[in-house]
């Protein structure tokens, strides 16, 4: 009997949190379906969309750019030292390019934007929830999903590929700078190698990933924000949940999409 109790006291929390997890996944799924259904029906709030694109996209540029610059530089050094082991130092330009464009650009860009944007969306909407602004929206005949969620989801889904495209270029530039200054590469050879090696599919697969990651970031921010409760503490929790869940989902989706494009 005591062993039964001991086992159940260990297993019960596991079972409970597994059930909770499934419940949350179901709710998020419904939230996504509802959001998508609102895409198709007017009214559309263009001003909210443009200001979201500015806040989310444009203002994320420094973060994404710096991340890409240093990642590209580090990547060049790493690949050089790895390549040198079998006299293949010349692969640096092509692997930096493919690594940035197909993988690191979208993933790191997505994670940085998750940290910056999912948190701010969740905090903003969470505060609106606890100060009754979302109720006020409803009583003023405005649907919160149309007015708050759709502009943000569209803004991240559109902005992230653009950010990542810029980040790819900056990342390749970072690799280029390190290669010609530290590793004695010839600049024009480096660039020709990069351009000749990359295929259009490398670029599009990276940008499609970025778009999906953008969608994930805004959906998680909006979902956790709009469902927060319990005052300032609830808003803090919503913010954490938004960042953690969007980061994990980005990495999961990244693997699945990579399989898809493989």
């Amino acid at each position, binding site marked *: 009997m005591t062993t039964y109790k001991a086992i159940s006291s260990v297993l019960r929390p596991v079972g409970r949190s597994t059930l909770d997890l499934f419940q949350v996944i179901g709710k998020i799924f419904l939230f996504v379906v509802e959001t998508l259904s609102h895409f198709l029906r007017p*009214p559309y709030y263009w001003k909210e969309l443009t200001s979201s694109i500015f806040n989310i996209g444009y203002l994320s540029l420094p973060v994404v750019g710096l991340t890409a610059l240093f990642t590209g530089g580090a990547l060049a050094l790493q690949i050089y030292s790895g390549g040198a082991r079998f006299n293949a130092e010349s692969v640096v330009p092509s692997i930096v390019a493919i690594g940035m464009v197909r993988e690191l650009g979208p993933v790191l860009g997505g994670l940085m934007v998750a940290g910056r944007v999912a948190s701010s969306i969740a905090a903003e909407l969470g*505060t*609106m929830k606890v*100060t*009754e*602004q979302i*109720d*006020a*929206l*409803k*009583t*003023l*005949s*405005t649907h919160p999903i149309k007015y708050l969620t759709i502009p943000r989801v569209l803004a991240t889904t559109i902005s992230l590929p653009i950010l990542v495209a810029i980040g790819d270029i900056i990342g390749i530039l970072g690799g280029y700078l390190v290669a010609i200054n530290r590793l004695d590469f010839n600049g024009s050879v480096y660039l020709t190698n990069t351009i000749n090696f990359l295929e259009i599919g490398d670029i599009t697969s990276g940008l499609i990933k970025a778009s999906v990651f953008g969608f994930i970031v805004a959906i998680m921010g909006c979902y956790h924000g709009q469902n927060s409760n319990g005052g300032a503490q609830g808003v803090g929790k919503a913010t954490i949940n938004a960042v953690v869940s969007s980061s994990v989902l980005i990495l999961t989706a990244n693997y699945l999409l990579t399989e898809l494009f493989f």
Partner: protein
Amino acid sequence: MISIKNIKKSFNQVNVLNGINLDVAKGESMVVIGGSGTGKSVLLKVILGLIQPDSGEIFLEDQSLSHIGREQFLARFGMLFQGGALFDSLNVWQNISFRLVRGNGRINAKEAREIAEQKLQRVGLKPDILELFPSELSGGMQKRVGLARAIASNPEIIFFDEPTTGLDPIMAGVINELIREIVVEMGVTAITITHDMASARAIGDKVAMIHNGIVQWTGRITDLEKSNDPYLIQFLKGSSSGPIKLTS
């Protein structure tokens, strides 16, 4: 004008509303009083359609709300939220004219600003705050801007959720007076939730006291003192002894 019929609502097996019945006539100002946690805010949210009741119905001029549709109802309606609930990202005139520039029969920004200015004057504020954001206003000003937003589309029905809590006595008096004036001059039907008996007397024609999930007492505000309902007497006296038990 508004008939609330047998509304029941429970959260996690706890009955909050146990069959509320309440009628509010056209042009009448009804004040709802009752202890903390008795479900006054839940009742308002049920009427607004923000919370789905377990059973019961709301009628607007003998038509069930489920037939009229929420959009039609909300178009005739304004609400002042407890904390003002102004939109942080919009300035004062954009807040006041929020519905006007969005709903059906939308108007352009210039007209919206003019109407916002009129409404702002109506609540006793100067037009120099039109461009300010809610975070730059005091609590009393936010309440008044919230009031201006509630009356912006000339509603027939207005709800006030605790309009005077958190304000100093003088500002509370100003808000009470404003609400009374606006209700009379616009001829609106009003429902106000409050704990503040001075406010109730200033705003209301009628009072309903909620206790144990039902309307315990209802009558004209002038009859408050004459009632011999023990629950009401205890509430008015603010006494801890009587039939109302402090359970939680």
